[in-house]
């Protein structure tokens, strides 16, 4: 089983089971993690599934792609480790992944 954790703004940690091949966004939505809206349904088109990858995990998760970058670039909350969770595919390598939820989805 692959486990991923979302840390809310208040520090509370939510750990959910994710399936190989699905996106981190899908894992969040299926497990009703609050604060991931995913309005476009995972098409890298709206930036409402924004998360910050924990420092310890960023190298493994990697940099955003070009179209993802274009959307993140418009987000006033954007930080170095910002990603759109719909663009992160779950794999065994990411077992134990920790990401932080933003205060707000734009």
């Amino acid at each position, binding site marked *: 089983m692959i486990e991923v954790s979302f840390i809310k703004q208040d520090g509370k940690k939510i750990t959910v089971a994710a399936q190989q091949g699905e996106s981190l966004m899908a894992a969040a939505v299926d497990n009703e993690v609050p604060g991931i*809206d995913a*309005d476009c349904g995972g098409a890298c088109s*709206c930036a*409402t599934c924004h998360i910050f990858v924990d420092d310890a995990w960023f190298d493994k998760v990697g940099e955003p792609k070009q179209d993802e970058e*274009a*959307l993140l670039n*418009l987000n006033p909350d954007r930080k170095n480790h910002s990603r759109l969770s719909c663009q992160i595919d779950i794999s065994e390598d990411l077992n134990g992944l920790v990401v932080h939820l933003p205060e*707000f989805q734009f």
Partner: protein
Amino acid sequence: MNTKANIDPDTMTKKKYRHMVGIDPYDIPLEDYDLSQRELYQQMTFPGFFERLRKEEPVHYCKDSKFGPYWSITKFQDIMEIEGNPEVFSSEPSIAILDFGDEMPRVPMFIAMDEPKHSEQRRTAQEVVAPKNLKEMESIIRERVQSILEPLPLNETFNWVDKVSIELTGQMLSTILGFPFEDRRKLTFWSDVATAVPGPDSPVSSYEDTANILGNEMVPAFMELWNYRKENPGEFDIVSLLAHGEKTKNMATENPMEFLGNLILLIVGGNDTTRNSISGSVLFLNENPEQYDKLRANPDLVPSLVSETIRYQTPLTHMRRTVTQDFEFRGKQMKKGDKVILWYVSGNRDADEIENPDSFIIDRKQPRHHISFGFGIHRCMGNRLAEMQLRIVWEEILKRFEKIEVVGEIKRPYSNLIKGYTELPVRLHPKK
């Protein structure tokens, strides 16, 4: 004799096009379809045409219309794909089907710009809807909603559009722009002027009129405000943010047309859309009394009522892109310079994307999954503010009124872009 009266203000010609109103969608060949006709939206007879297009020819070419030839994109996923490809599908020179001609000079605004300029300007303006500002605005909005709802007459017919929807969005605009509160109806007026089609029932008789009103009334008022905010910045109003933003601080002096354009964008963007969604929510709950019962029984449904309303209303019928290079899309050959119309009114009723799309269901599973805000880099910047306004309106309505009853004839604007209401006669029933 006044010959000008016969000339179409959009095209400056007397050419007439076959009317689509009153025609059964299956009685004419698809090649004769022209969904740009404003009567279709004023009389709400458009849905059947889009339904057939989605089934038979989802990417459709109209070879001639009042607005020239154009492509219609009618499926949710296709619209999203095009919005995700801004290199091929440009937002310049216009994001609406209408091109401004010689009568009305092109007014630059960031919604109708490509990168990198779009992002530079949008980022600055976007600060106004940053979380900390929205939190502060929430209490201001609530107070204003209360002060609008409190004095409304009970058991008496009045126009909800004017007394509530326009009043509230006008008040909000004055706050967001840092514009004098007592002059707020000017903002509403300028917004109406900016989108009005010249004609007898319109606030303008020609596009020359439009340019004069905006140029001689709105621009000086905002120049004055700009100069004031240069010296006395407000906490979170857009004029202050632009006047002090790194990339935008010289906009008003170096490029006054761009300043005007962005103001029009923010005024129109924050005005009609929210106004018409507020009115739409009242109408849809009347048309679907079982949904109104559901809402009264469970006020926690307000946020999802808000999203469902925005989908069902679709306050902007379309956005437009222009093709920058010859491009094949879904087997159709588009040419450089072609107009591509993304019909949000159709995408939001696409059954391949949304279950029971023609039903108004306030507790849908994914109510936020709609196309009214658009997608990609030009997605609506004020979406959270709009949702917040609608949410607060309904939270406060539910505290006060048992029912807002629609009691008379509804009137809609003559527009192929702004989908909304000019009259919604209602009667309020107090909470028992």
